[in-house]
């Protein structure tokens, strides 16, 4: 048992030096869960942060992140190595988010049909004004698509091409959505006077 623990430490120390692409190959070819675990450790923060900005609450976002990483494991052989691994992961995370939204929309439609009225639509946007952060106010003026693309660009640092790959949109459309989002933020907030950090 102690030997297993020691072996795991040696293995994870070795995996730390391996790049993403090789870890993916290891995980796909030999079903190496330790290699995939290292990939999760490296990217979980960005994926969770991305989903926390899209989903209603952090707990839901973390559940979605877990689901996204499980989907990613199932689809790992489809990662071609073209573009960054985090870009591909965010694509899976975004698809997972959209699927869960569709499911919950269908669920609320069924509830509405049977006469149930939801007491609270969304956790984030019904909070008291004091509790809402600057970023939440900023995100609230954007549509869901704009929010996802702006977060990918400004929080996750993806290039326009990577965002295009992740969302399935042409690069030109991505650029115009970012432009539109910036314009909305500019008109709603005087961001030049904003003192942040």
């Amino acid at each position, binding site marked *: 048992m102690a030997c297993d623990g020691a072996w795991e430490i040696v293995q994870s120390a070795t995996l730390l030096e391996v790049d993403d692409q090789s870890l993916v190959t290891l995980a796909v070819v030999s079903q190496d*869960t330790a290699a995939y*675990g290292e990939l999760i450790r490296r990217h979980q923060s960005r994926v*969770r942060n991305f989903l926390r900005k899209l989903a209603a609450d952090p707990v839901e976002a973390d559940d979605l992140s*877990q689901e996204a990483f*499980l989907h990613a494991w199932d689809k790992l052989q489809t990662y071609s190595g073209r573009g960054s691994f985090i870009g591909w992961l965010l694509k899976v995370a975004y698809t997972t988010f959209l699927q869960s939204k569709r499911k919950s929309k269908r669920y609320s439609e069924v509830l509405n049909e049977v006469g149930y009225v939801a007491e609270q639509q969304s956790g984030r946007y019904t909070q008291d004004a004091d509790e809402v952060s600057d970023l939440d106010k900023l995100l609230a003026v954007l549509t869901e698509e704009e929010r996802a693309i702006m977060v990918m660009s400004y*929080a996750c640092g993806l290039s326009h091409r990577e965002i295009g790959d992740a969302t399935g949109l042409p690069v030109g459309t991505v650029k115009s959505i970012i432009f539109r989002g910036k314009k909305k933020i500019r008109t709603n907030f005087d961001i030049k006077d904003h003192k942040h950090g």
Partner: protein
Amino acid sequence: MTSKIINMVEKLKDAEDRLLESMFAAEPIADGGFSKRIVTHIRRRIWVRRLALPVAMLVGGLIAFKPAMQLVTVSSTLLGVVPREFLEIPASVLPQVESVTFGVPLIPMIVLSAMVIVAGILGTRLLNE
């Protein structure tokens, strides 16, 4: 060349972009057992998948055992109706010195075994796919 120009243009960020980046920036989230939880979940799923095929074959075999035995009994009864000369194999075909006549239940057993083997191979291939 074109992609290099696109990348350069993307890197030329103005003050507004930098401000947005600082506003969107978030504290890194500590792993806190998150990755371990997912890896454990995946390992469990792999074991379930590995066990699914042998368990399915065992259950299938148990379910199919009784009807298969009944099939053998019925076949041997039906073959008793077939004239004996159709079932006899001449001794010249076989390597043995003495003339051998196969009993009635042996042929259906061979046919059934062959059918079970073929079904097994096809079933395994289908499950693997």
